[in-house]
Protein backbone atom coordinates (compact mmCIF):
# COMPACT_ATOMS: atom_id res chain seq x y z
CA UNK A 1 0.00 0.00 0.00
CA UNK A 2 1.34 3.42 -0.82
CA UNK A 3 0.60 6.46 1.26
CA UNK A 4 -0.57 9.66 -0.40
CA UNK A 5 0.52 13.07 0.71
CA UNK A 6 -2.67 13.72 2.67
CA UNK A 7 -2.16 10.53 4.72
CA UNK A 8 1.44 11.42 5.45
CA UNK A 9 0.31 14.89 6.50
CA UNK A 10 -2.28 13.38 8.83
CA UNK A 11 0.30 11.04 10.42
CA UNK A 12 2.73 13.96 10.88
CA UNK A 13 0.00 15.91 12.60
CA UNK A 14 -0.93 12.95 14.86
CA UNK A 15 2.78 12.63 15.72
CA UNK A 16 3.00 16.40 16.33
CA UNK A 17 5.88 16.86 13.89
CA UNK A 18 5.64 19.94 11.64
CA UNK A 19 6.60 19.14 8.05
CA UNK A 20 6.99 21.34 5.02
CA UNK A 21 5.49 20.28 1.68
CA UNK A 22 8.95 19.37 0.51
CA UNK A 23 9.49 17.12 3.56
CA UNK A 24 6.11 15.46 3.09
CA UNK A 25 7.03 14.72 -0.53
CA UNK A 26 10.35 13.23 0.58
CA UNK A 27 8.82 11.21 3.41
CA UNK A 28 6.00 9.80 1.27
CA UNK A 29 7.92 7.20 -0.78
CA UNK A 30 10.11 6.24 2.22
CA UNK A 31 7.13 5.53 4.46
CA UNK A 32 5.31 3.74 1.65
CA UNK A 33 8.29 1.50 1.13
CA UNK A 34 8.54 0.60 4.83
CA UNK A 35 4.78 0.00 5.09
CA UNK A 36 5.01 -2.14 1.95
CA UNK A 37 7.83 -4.12 3.55
CA UNK A 38 5.98 -4.81 6.80
CA UNK A 39 2.82 -5.80 4.95
CA UNK A 40 4.41 -9.18 4.21
CA UNK A 41 3.23 -10.10 7.73
CA UNK A 42 -0.24 -10.58 6.21
CA UNK A 43 1.10 -13.82 4.65
CA UNK A 44 1.60 -15.42 8.07
CA UNK A 45 -1.21 -17.54 9.40
CA UNK A 46 -1.86 -16.25 12.93
CA UNK A 47 -5.23 -17.88 13.57
CA UNK A 48 -5.56 -18.75 17.26
CA UNK A 49 -2.24 -17.07 18.12
CA UNK A 50 -2.29 -14.74 21.10
CA UNK A 51 -0.42 -11.44 20.69
CA UNK A 52 2.88 -11.42 22.60
CA UNK A 53 3.41 -8.35 24.76
CA UNK A 54 5.62 -9.63 27.56
CA UNK A 55 8.45 -11.68 26.16
CA UNK A 56 9.86 -13.37 29.25
CA UNK A 57 8.29 -15.42 31.99
CA UNK A 58 8.19 -12.76 34.66
CA UNK A 59 5.10 -11.35 36.24
CA UNK A 60 5.57 -7.67 36.94
CA UNK A 61 5.22 -7.00 40.64
CA UNK A 62 2.83 -4.43 42.01
CA UNK A 63 4.46 -2.06 44.40
CA UNK A 64 2.71 -0.81 47.52
CA UNK A 65 0.56 2.22 46.81
CA UNK A 66 2.59 4.60 48.95
CA UNK A 67 4.51 7.77 48.32
CA UNK A 68 8.14 6.76 47.75
CA UNK A 69 9.56 9.88 46.19
CA UNK A 70 9.01 13.60 46.14
CA UNK A 71 10.01 16.85 47.78
CA UNK A 72 12.45 17.52 44.95
CA UNK A 73 10.72 20.20 42.88
CA UNK A 74 14.08 21.82 42.21
CA UNK A 75 15.37 18.64 40.58
CA UNK A 76 12.18 18.15 38.59
CA UNK A 77 12.40 21.70 37.27
CA UNK A 78 16.15 21.69 36.75
CA UNK A 79 15.93 20.98 33.00
CA UNK A 80 12.78 22.99 32.30
CA UNK A 81 13.09 25.20 29.21
CA UNK A 82 11.16 27.85 31.16
CA UNK A 83 9.96 27.98 34.78
CA UNK A 84 8.58 30.56 37.15
CA UNK A 85 8.30 30.14 40.92
CA UNK A 86 8.29 26.37 40.88
CA UNK A 87 6.04 25.94 37.82
CA UNK A 88 6.65 24.92 34.22
CA UNK A 89 5.75 27.72 31.83
CA UNK A 90 3.87 26.86 28.62
CA UNK A 91 2.25 29.01 25.93
CA UNK A 92 -1.23 30.25 26.82
CA UNK A 93 -3.72 27.44 26.28
CA UNK A 94 -7.07 28.99 27.30
CA UNK A 95 -7.98 32.43 26.00
Amino acid sequence: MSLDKESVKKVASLARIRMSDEELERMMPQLSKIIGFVEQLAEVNTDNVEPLANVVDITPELRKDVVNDGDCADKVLKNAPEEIQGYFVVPKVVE
Partner: protein
Amino acid sequence: MSKLTDLTIASALTGLENKDFTAVELAQAHIDAMAEQSNLNAFITETPDIALKQAEASDKRRASGDAGALDGIPLAIKDLFCTNGVQTTAGSHILEGFIPQYESTVTQKLFDDGAVMLGKTNLDEFAMGSSNTTSYYGNVINPWKRDGDDTDLTPGGSSGGSAAAVAAKICMGATGTDTGGSIRQPASFCGITGIKPTYGRCSRWGTVAFASSLDQAGTFARTVEDNALLLRSMSGHDPKDSTSANKDVPDFLAALTGDIKGKVIGIPKEYRVDGMPEEISALWQRGIKWLESAGATTIEVSLPHTHYALATYYVIAPAEASSNLARYDGVRFGHRAKEDDLTDMYEITRAEGFGDEVKRRIMIGTYALSSGYYDAYYIKAQKVRRLISQDFLSAFEKCDALLTPTAPSAAFAIGENEDDPIKMYLNDVFTVPASLAGLPGISIPAGVDSQGLPLGLQVIGRPWDEETVLKVAGVVENLAQFTYVPQTVKKAAA
Protein backbone atom coordinates in the same frame (compact mmCIF):
# COMPACT_ATOMS: atom_id res chain seq x y z
CA MET B 1 55.62 -3.94 30.75
CA SER B 2 52.98 -3.62 28.05
CA LYS B 3 50.96 -0.44 27.80
CA LEU B 4 48.22 -0.06 30.39
CA THR B 5 45.67 0.42 27.62
CA ASP B 6 46.52 -3.05 26.22
CA LEU B 7 45.39 -4.82 29.38
CA THR B 8 42.17 -6.72 29.77
CA ILE B 9 39.90 -5.85 32.69
CA ALA B 10 40.79 -9.12 34.43
CA SER B 11 44.54 -8.48 34.17
CA ALA B 12 44.16 -4.82 35.17
CA LEU B 13 42.33 -5.89 38.33
CA THR B 14 45.26 -8.18 39.16
CA GLY B 15 47.73 -5.38 38.40
CA LEU B 16 45.87 -2.97 40.66
CA GLU B 17 45.71 -5.54 43.44
CA ASN B 18 49.47 -6.25 43.09
CA LYS B 19 50.19 -2.49 43.17
CA ASP B 20 51.88 -2.68 39.73
CA PHE B 21 50.10 0.60 38.96
CA THR B 22 47.40 2.79 40.49
CA ALA B 23 43.85 3.43 39.34
CA VAL B 24 44.88 7.04 38.68
CA GLU B 25 47.68 5.87 36.35
CA LEU B 26 45.28 3.51 34.63
CA ALA B 27 42.68 6.28 34.21
CA GLN B 28 45.30 8.74 32.94
CA ALA B 29 46.58 6.27 30.32
CA HIS B 30 43.03 5.94 28.99
CA ILE B 31 42.36 9.68 29.17
CA ASP B 32 45.48 10.17 27.01
CA ALA B 33 44.24 7.53 24.56
CA MET B 34 40.86 9.29 24.43
CA ALA B 35 42.58 12.59 23.54
CA GLU B 36 44.86 10.98 20.94
CA GLN B 37 41.95 9.35 19.16
CA SER B 38 39.38 12.12 19.44
CA ASN B 39 39.15 12.04 15.61
CA LEU B 40 37.07 8.83 15.94
CA ASN B 41 34.31 10.98 17.51
CA ALA B 42 33.48 8.07 19.80
CA PHE B 43 32.45 10.36 22.67
CA ILE B 44 29.75 13.01 22.88
CA THR B 45 30.89 14.12 26.35
CA GLU B 46 34.33 13.36 27.77
CA THR B 47 34.58 13.33 31.56
CA PRO B 48 38.30 13.11 32.39
CA ASP B 49 37.87 15.10 35.62
CA ILE B 50 35.24 12.70 36.90
CA ALA B 51 37.44 9.76 35.87
CA LEU B 52 40.44 11.05 37.82
CA LYS B 53 38.33 11.84 40.89
CA GLN B 54 36.76 8.37 40.80
CA ALA B 55 40.20 6.80 40.28
CA GLU B 56 41.63 8.62 43.30
CA ALA B 57 38.74 7.39 45.43
CA SER B 58 39.32 3.90 44.04
CA ASP B 59 42.98 3.92 45.04
CA LYS B 60 41.96 4.89 48.58
CA ARG B 61 39.39 2.11 48.75
CA ARG B 62 41.92 -0.44 47.55
CA ALA B 63 44.51 0.78 50.06
CA SER B 64 42.01 0.26 52.88
CA GLY B 65 40.98 -3.16 51.58
CA ASP B 66 37.52 -2.10 50.39
CA ALA B 67 37.94 -2.55 46.64
CA GLY B 68 34.85 -3.58 44.67
CA ALA B 69 34.59 -6.05 41.81
CA LEU B 70 35.49 -3.45 39.15
CA ASP B 71 37.42 -1.03 41.29
CA GLY B 72 39.48 1.38 39.22
CA ILE B 73 38.43 0.04 35.80
CA PRO B 74 37.96 2.83 33.22
CA LEU B 75 34.74 2.40 31.25
CA ALA B 76 32.81 4.33 28.65
CA ILE B 77 29.06 4.77 29.06
CA LYS B 78 26.69 4.87 26.11
CA ASP B 79 25.01 8.27 26.10
CA LEU B 80 21.62 6.62 26.53
CA PHE B 81 22.19 5.96 30.25
CA CYS B 82 21.25 8.88 32.48
CA THR B 83 24.22 10.01 34.55
CA ASN B 84 23.64 12.30 37.48
CA GLY B 85 24.97 15.77 36.70
CA VAL B 86 26.47 14.76 33.33
CA GLN B 87 24.78 15.69 30.04
CA THR B 88 22.80 12.81 28.52
CA THR B 89 21.72 13.35 24.91
CA ALA B 90 20.66 9.98 23.41
CA GLY B 91 22.46 11.31 20.32
CA SER B 92 19.60 13.76 19.76
CA HIS B 93 19.41 17.54 19.43
CA ILE B 94 16.17 17.43 21.42
CA LEU B 95 18.11 16.39 24.55
CA GLU B 96 21.12 18.64 24.00
CA GLY B 97 22.04 20.15 27.35
CA PHE B 98 19.85 17.74 29.36
CA ILE B 99 21.50 17.14 32.74
CA PRO B 100 19.85 14.22 34.57
CA GLN B 101 19.31 14.69 38.29
CA TYR B 102 19.47 10.95 38.90
CA GLU B 103 21.65 7.99 38.01
CA SER B 104 20.51 5.04 35.89
CA THR B 105 20.46 1.76 37.79
CA VAL B 106 23.02 0.18 35.45
CA THR B 107 25.60 2.96 35.87
CA GLN B 108 24.90 3.15 39.61
CA LYS B 109 25.67 -0.55 39.93
CA LEU B 110 28.92 -0.17 37.97
CA PHE B 111 29.95 2.79 40.15
CA ASP B 112 28.99 0.88 43.31
CA ASP B 113 31.52 -1.74 42.20
CA GLY B 114 34.18 0.93 41.72
CA ALA B 115 34.11 1.53 37.95
CA VAL B 116 35.55 4.78 36.59
CA MET B 117 33.70 6.76 33.87
CA LEU B 118 35.77 8.23 31.01
CA GLY B 119 32.80 9.73 29.20
CA LYS B 120 29.53 9.28 27.36
CA THR B 121 29.74 7.59 23.99
CA ASN B 122 28.20 8.55 20.69
CA LEU B 123 25.27 6.56 19.28
CA ASP B 124 22.60 6.63 16.64
CA GLU B 125 19.89 9.12 17.60
CA PHE B 126 17.69 7.43 20.25
CA ALA B 127 19.57 4.21 19.36
CA MET B 128 17.79 4.07 16.00
CA GLY B 129 20.30 2.93 13.43
CA SER B 130 22.88 0.37 12.41
CA SER B 131 25.74 2.66 11.39
CA ASN B 132 25.98 5.45 13.97
CA THR B 133 25.28 7.92 11.16
CA THR B 134 21.99 9.22 12.59
CA SER B 135 23.64 10.90 15.60
CA TYR B 136 23.15 14.67 15.85
CA TYR B 137 26.72 14.78 17.16
CA GLY B 138 28.33 13.42 14.00
CA ASN B 139 29.46 10.04 12.71
CA VAL B 140 31.69 7.72 14.68
CA ILE B 141 34.65 6.39 12.70
CA ASN B 142 35.51 2.72 13.00
CA PRO B 143 39.16 2.24 14.13
CA TRP B 144 39.42 -0.47 11.45
CA LYS B 145 40.22 0.28 7.80
CA ARG B 146 40.21 -1.96 4.75
CA ASP B 147 43.73 -3.08 3.82
CA GLY B 148 45.43 -0.35 1.81
CA ASP B 149 42.34 1.84 1.78
CA ASP B 150 41.82 4.92 3.94
CA THR B 151 38.05 5.12 3.51
CA ASP B 152 36.29 5.77 6.83
CA LEU B 153 34.05 2.89 7.82
CA THR B 154 31.08 2.85 10.19
CA PRO B 155 31.48 1.15 13.57
CA GLY B 156 27.96 -0.22 13.24
CA GLY B 157 25.17 0.92 15.50
CA SER B 158 23.51 1.96 17.48
CA SER B 159 26.19 1.59 20.19
CA GLY B 160 28.90 2.63 17.69
CA GLY B 161 30.84 4.95 20.01
CA SER B 162 31.07 2.33 22.74
CA ALA B 163 32.27 -0.37 20.32
CA ALA B 164 34.80 1.95 18.63
CA ALA B 165 36.17 3.14 21.99
CA VAL B 166 36.74 -0.43 23.22
CA ALA B 167 38.31 -1.52 19.89
CA ALA B 168 40.57 1.56 19.84
CA LYS B 169 41.70 0.80 23.42
CA ILE B 170 40.38 4.11 24.73
CA CYS B 171 38.49 2.25 27.45
CA MET B 172 38.64 -1.27 28.87
CA GLY B 173 34.93 -1.91 28.52
CA ALA B 174 31.72 -0.06 27.80
CA THR B 175 27.99 -0.22 28.29
CA GLY B 176 25.65 -0.59 25.36
CA THR B 177 21.99 -1.18 24.76
CA ASP B 178 20.54 -3.64 22.29
CA THR B 179 17.02 -3.32 20.88
CA GLY B 180 17.49 -5.22 17.62
CA GLY B 181 21.23 -5.80 17.47
CA SER B 182 22.74 -2.53 18.70
CA ILE B 183 25.41 -4.31 20.78
CA ARG B 184 26.11 -7.41 18.71
CA GLN B 185 26.37 -5.80 15.25
CA PRO B 186 28.82 -3.03 16.30
CA ALA B 187 30.84 -5.60 18.28
CA SER B 188 31.15 -7.61 15.05
CA PHE B 189 32.07 -4.53 12.97
CA CYS B 190 34.73 -3.43 15.48
CA GLY B 191 36.32 -6.84 16.19
CA ILE B 192 35.38 -7.00 19.88
CA THR B 193 33.00 -9.00 22.06
CA GLY B 194 29.59 -7.75 23.13
CA ILE B 195 26.72 -9.42 24.96
CA LYS B 196 23.03 -8.61 25.19
CA PRO B 197 21.63 -10.54 28.16
CA THR B 198 18.07 -11.85 28.50
CA TYR B 199 15.39 -9.17 28.47
CA GLY B 200 14.85 -8.32 32.14
CA ARG B 201 18.37 -9.23 33.33
CA CYS B 202 19.41 -5.58 33.69
CA SER B 203 17.20 -2.76 34.88
CA ARG B 204 16.03 -0.29 32.26
CA TRP B 205 15.47 2.42 34.88
CA GLY B 206 17.22 5.61 33.86
CA THR B 207 17.96 4.40 30.33
CA VAL B 208 16.41 6.59 27.65
CA ALA B 209 13.62 4.42 26.22
CA PHE B 210 13.38 3.45 22.55
CA ALA B 211 11.23 0.29 22.39
CA SER B 212 10.44 -0.81 25.91
CA SER B 213 9.57 -4.45 25.21
CA LEU B 214 12.92 -4.94 23.43
CA ASP B 215 15.48 -2.55 25.00
CA GLN B 216 18.10 -4.30 27.10
CA ALA B 217 21.42 -3.09 28.47
CA GLY B 218 24.60 -5.07 27.88
CA THR B 219 28.35 -4.82 27.64
CA PHE B 220 31.35 -4.49 25.35
CA ALA B 221 34.89 -5.60 26.11
CA ARG B 222 37.83 -7.21 24.35
CA THR B 223 37.38 -10.66 25.91
CA VAL B 224 34.50 -12.91 26.91
CA GLU B 225 35.80 -12.97 30.49
CA ASP B 226 35.74 -9.16 30.70
CA ASN B 227 32.15 -9.13 29.44
CA ALA B 228 31.23 -11.63 32.15
CA LEU B 229 32.83 -9.37 34.77
CA LEU B 230 30.94 -6.29 33.61
CA LEU B 231 27.65 -8.10 33.21
CA ARG B 232 27.87 -9.53 36.72
CA SER B 233 28.07 -6.02 38.12
CA MET B 234 25.27 -4.60 35.96
CA SER B 235 22.67 -7.33 36.37
CA GLY B 236 20.01 -7.84 38.98
CA HIS B 237 16.51 -7.01 40.11
CA ASP B 238 15.51 -3.40 40.48
CA PRO B 239 12.23 -2.45 42.18
CA LYS B 240 12.22 0.68 40.00
CA ASP B 241 11.80 -1.42 36.82
CA SER B 242 8.85 -3.81 37.02
CA THR B 243 10.16 -5.70 33.97
CA SER B 244 13.51 -6.45 35.60
CA ALA B 245 13.60 -10.04 36.75
CA ASN B 246 13.57 -10.98 40.41
CA LYS B 247 16.07 -13.78 39.82
CA ASP B 248 19.46 -14.45 41.31
CA VAL B 249 22.37 -13.34 39.18
CA PRO B 250 24.57 -16.35 38.44
CA ASP B 251 28.34 -16.08 38.71
CA PHE B 252 28.91 -15.54 35.01
CA LEU B 253 32.68 -15.89 35.43
CA ALA B 254 32.33 -19.38 36.86
CA ALA B 255 30.60 -20.41 33.63
CA LEU B 256 33.81 -19.95 31.64
CA THR B 257 35.05 -23.49 32.12
CA GLY B 258 35.86 -24.12 28.47
CA ASP B 259 34.03 -27.41 28.79
CA ILE B 260 31.25 -27.84 26.22
CA LYS B 261 31.50 -31.62 25.95
CA GLY B 262 28.05 -33.07 25.36
CA LYS B 263 26.48 -29.69 24.57
CA VAL B 264 24.25 -29.61 21.52
CA ILE B 265 24.60 -26.56 19.30
CA GLY B 266 21.81 -25.76 16.85
CA ILE B 267 22.57 -24.35 13.42
CA PRO B 268 19.44 -22.57 12.15
CA LYS B 269 19.00 -23.38 8.48
CA GLU B 270 16.93 -20.24 7.78
CA TYR B 271 20.01 -18.11 8.56
CA ARG B 272 21.63 -19.34 5.33
CA VAL B 273 20.17 -16.37 3.52
CA ASP B 274 20.48 -15.65 -0.18
CA GLY B 275 23.44 -13.53 -1.06
CA MET B 276 25.39 -14.19 2.12
CA PRO B 277 29.04 -13.44 1.34
CA GLU B 278 31.11 -16.60 0.90
CA GLU B 279 33.57 -15.46 3.57
CA ILE B 280 30.80 -15.29 6.15
CA SER B 281 29.48 -18.77 5.29
CA ALA B 282 33.04 -20.07 5.50
CA LEU B 283 33.59 -18.45 8.89
CA TRP B 284 30.31 -19.90 10.17
CA GLN B 285 31.42 -23.33 8.94
CA ARG B 286 34.75 -22.90 10.76
CA GLY B 287 32.88 -21.99 13.93
CA ILE B 288 30.82 -25.18 13.66
CA LYS B 289 34.03 -27.23 13.30
CA TRP B 290 35.59 -25.48 16.32
CA LEU B 291 32.65 -26.36 18.56
CA GLU B 292 32.67 -29.96 17.30
CA SER B 293 36.41 -30.22 17.94
CA ALA B 294 35.74 -29.08 21.53
CA GLY B 295 33.32 -31.96 22.07
CA ALA B 296 29.96 -30.40 21.23
CA THR B 297 27.47 -31.92 18.81
CA THR B 298 25.96 -29.68 16.15
CA ILE B 299 22.55 -30.23 14.62
CA GLU B 300 20.51 -28.38 12.04
CA VAL B 301 17.44 -26.71 13.52
CA SER B 302 14.60 -24.80 11.93
CA LEU B 303 13.28 -21.38 12.93
CA PRO B 304 10.55 -21.18 10.31
CA HIS B 305 9.37 -17.61 10.96
CA THR B 306 12.85 -16.03 10.74
CA HIS B 307 11.93 -14.48 7.40
CA TYR B 308 9.27 -12.35 9.10
CA ALA B 309 11.40 -11.10 11.99
CA LEU B 310 12.52 -7.82 10.41
CA ALA B 311 8.99 -6.89 9.34
CA THR B 312 7.73 -7.73 12.83
CA TYR B 313 10.47 -5.63 14.38
CA TYR B 314 9.77 -2.67 12.10
CA VAL B 315 6.19 -2.54 13.36
CA ILE B 316 6.78 -3.17 17.06
CA ALA B 317 9.89 -1.04 17.61
CA PRO B 318 8.55 2.09 15.83
CA ALA B 319 5.15 1.68 17.52
CA GLU B 320 6.74 1.63 20.97
CA ALA B 321 9.11 4.43 19.96
CA SER B 322 6.28 6.68 18.81
CA SER B 323 4.69 6.26 22.22
CA ASN B 324 7.92 6.63 24.22
CA LEU B 325 9.08 9.68 22.30
CA ALA B 326 5.79 11.50 22.84
CA ARG B 327 7.37 12.84 26.05
CA TYR B 328 9.65 15.17 24.06
CA ASP B 329 7.19 18.02 23.89
CA GLY B 330 9.35 20.98 24.88
CA VAL B 331 7.61 21.44 28.23
CA ARG B 332 9.59 19.72 30.98
CA PHE B 333 13.06 19.21 29.55
CA GLY B 334 15.01 19.33 26.33
CA HIS B 335 14.78 21.63 23.35
CA ARG B 336 11.82 24.04 23.02
CA ALA B 337 10.93 26.09 19.94
CA LYS B 338 9.95 29.64 20.87
CA GLU B 339 6.35 29.73 19.70
CA ASP B 340 3.29 31.44 21.17
CA ASP B 341 0.78 28.79 20.21
CA LEU B 342 0.85 25.47 22.07
CA THR B 343 0.41 23.21 19.03
CA ASP B 344 2.97 25.19 17.06
CA MET B 345 5.35 24.85 20.00
CA TYR B 346 4.91 21.05 20.12
CA GLU B 347 5.17 20.52 16.38
CA ILE B 348 8.09 22.84 15.72
CA THR B 349 9.98 21.67 18.82
CA ARG B 350 9.78 18.10 17.53
CA ALA B 351 10.51 19.10 13.91
CA GLU B 352 13.69 20.89 15.03
CA GLY B 353 14.68 18.41 17.69
CA PHE B 354 14.42 15.06 15.88
CA GLY B 355 16.50 13.87 12.92
CA ASP B 356 15.16 12.16 9.80
CA GLU B 357 15.45 8.52 10.92
CA VAL B 358 13.72 9.25 14.23
CA LYS B 359 10.93 11.13 12.44
CA ARG B 360 10.50 8.23 10.03
CA ARG B 361 10.18 5.72 12.83
CA ILE B 362 7.83 7.86 14.91
CA MET B 363 5.62 8.23 11.84
CA ILE B 364 5.66 4.52 11.01
CA GLY B 365 4.76 3.80 14.62
CA THR B 366 2.04 6.44 14.73
CA TYR B 367 0.58 5.01 11.53
CA ALA B 368 0.71 1.42 12.81
CA LEU B 369 -1.04 2.42 16.04
CA SER B 370 -3.62 4.69 14.45
CA SER B 371 -7.30 3.89 14.41
CA GLY B 372 -8.20 1.45 11.67
CA TYR B 373 -4.66 0.07 11.34
CA TYR B 374 -3.94 -1.07 14.90
CA ASP B 375 -5.13 -4.66 14.42
CA ALA B 376 -3.70 -5.05 10.93
CA TYR B 377 -0.21 -3.92 11.90
CA TYR B 378 0.46 -3.83 15.62
CA ILE B 379 -1.63 -6.78 16.85
CA LYS B 380 -0.59 -8.79 13.79
CA ALA B 381 3.08 -8.10 14.54
CA GLN B 382 2.62 -9.13 18.17
CA LYS B 383 1.12 -12.42 17.00
CA VAL B 384 4.00 -13.11 14.63
CA ARG B 385 6.34 -12.20 17.48
CA ARG B 386 4.84 -15.04 19.49
CA LEU B 387 5.46 -17.45 16.59
CA ILE B 388 9.08 -16.29 16.36
CA SER B 389 9.51 -16.76 20.09
CA GLN B 390 7.96 -20.24 19.90
CA ASP B 391 10.34 -21.17 17.06
CA PHE B 392 13.27 -20.56 19.41
CA LEU B 393 11.70 -22.38 22.34
CA SER B 394 11.04 -25.44 20.13
CA ALA B 395 14.62 -25.36 18.87
CA PHE B 396 15.89 -25.21 22.46
CA GLU B 397 14.10 -28.48 23.17
CA LYS B 398 16.72 -30.07 20.92
CA CYS B 399 19.80 -27.92 21.54
CA ASP B 400 21.49 -25.84 24.24
CA ALA B 401 22.54 -22.84 22.17
CA LEU B 402 22.58 -21.60 18.57
CA LEU B 403 25.55 -20.52 16.47
CA THR B 404 25.04 -18.00 13.64
CA PRO B 405 26.93 -15.17 11.95
CA THR B 406 26.37 -11.83 13.72
CA ALA B 407 25.87 -9.66 10.65
CA PRO B 408 25.51 -10.23 6.91
CA SER B 409 28.58 -8.11 6.10
CA ALA B 410 31.74 -6.59 7.53
CA ALA B 411 31.82 -2.87 8.35
CA PHE B 412 30.72 -0.73 5.41
CA ALA B 413 31.78 2.78 4.42
CA ILE B 414 30.12 5.80 5.99
CA GLY B 415 27.37 6.85 3.58
CA GLU B 416 26.76 3.37 2.16
CA ASN B 417 23.25 1.90 2.54
CA GLU B 418 21.86 5.39 3.21
CA ASP B 419 19.76 5.59 0.06
CA ASP B 420 17.23 3.00 1.20
CA PRO B 421 16.03 2.50 4.80
CA ILE B 422 15.19 -1.18 4.14
CA LYS B 423 18.76 -1.89 3.00
CA MET B 424 20.06 -0.46 6.27
CA TYR B 425 17.51 -2.48 8.27
CA LEU B 426 18.84 -5.71 6.67
CA ASN B 427 22.01 -5.33 8.74
CA ASP B 428 20.08 -6.64 11.70
CA VAL B 429 18.68 -9.73 9.99
CA PHE B 430 20.59 -12.17 12.27
CA THR B 431 20.24 -10.19 15.51
CA VAL B 432 16.60 -9.05 15.44
CA PRO B 433 14.97 -12.49 15.88
CA ALA B 434 16.69 -13.13 19.25
CA SER B 435 15.75 -9.60 20.36
CA LEU B 436 12.09 -10.26 19.56
CA ALA B 437 12.29 -13.43 21.65
CA GLY B 438 14.12 -11.64 24.51
CA LEU B 439 17.03 -14.10 24.34
CA PRO B 440 20.64 -13.60 25.39
CA GLY B 441 23.12 -13.27 22.52
CA ILE B 442 26.80 -12.55 22.21
CA SER B 443 29.06 -11.62 19.30
CA ILE B 444 32.67 -12.84 19.32
CA PRO B 445 35.29 -11.75 16.74
CA ALA B 446 36.14 -14.93 14.84
CA GLY B 447 38.10 -13.90 11.77
CA VAL B 448 38.72 -11.25 9.13
CA ASP B 449 37.50 -10.94 5.55
CA SER B 450 39.74 -10.62 2.49
CA GLN B 451 40.04 -6.88 3.13
CA GLY B 452 41.23 -7.41 6.69
CA LEU B 453 37.97 -6.42 8.39
CA PRO B 454 36.68 -8.31 11.44
CA LEU B 455 33.72 -10.67 11.27
CA GLY B 456 31.78 -11.92 14.28
CA LEU B 457 29.95 -15.10 15.18
CA GLN B 458 26.86 -14.99 17.36
CA VAL B 459 25.85 -17.42 20.11
CA ILE B 460 22.20 -17.28 21.20
CA GLY B 461 20.96 -19.04 24.33
CA ARG B 462 17.83 -19.95 26.24
CA PRO B 463 16.14 -17.28 28.37
CA TRP B 464 18.20 -16.68 31.55
CA ASP B 465 21.01 -18.93 30.32
CA GLU B 466 23.76 -16.37 29.74
CA GLU B 467 26.07 -18.94 31.35
CA THR B 468 25.88 -21.33 28.38
CA VAL B 469 26.15 -18.39 25.97
CA LEU B 470 29.34 -17.20 27.69
CA LYS B 471 30.71 -20.73 27.98
CA VAL B 472 30.27 -21.47 24.27
CA ALA B 473 31.56 -17.99 23.36
CA GLY B 474 34.66 -18.66 25.46
CA VAL B 475 35.37 -21.78 23.41
CA VAL B 476 34.92 -19.89 20.13
CA GLU B 477 37.24 -17.15 21.42
CA ASN B 478 39.85 -19.67 22.44
CA LEU B 479 39.84 -21.48 19.10
CA ALA B 480 39.47 -18.40 16.88
CA GLN B 481 42.63 -16.87 18.38
CA PHE B 482 41.59 -13.47 17.05
CA THR B 483 44.70 -11.32 17.46
CA TYR B 484 44.14 -8.73 14.73
CA VAL B 485 44.48 -5.10 15.78
CA PRO B 486 42.74 -2.09 14.21
CA GLN B 487 44.92 0.18 12.07
CA THR B 488 44.45 3.22 14.31
CA VAL B 489 45.76 1.26 17.30
CA LYS B 490 48.75 0.01 15.29
CA LYS B 491 49.46 3.57 14.19
CA ALA B 492 49.29 4.89 17.77
CA ALA B 493 51.71 2.15 18.88
CA ALA B 494 54.21 2.87 16.08
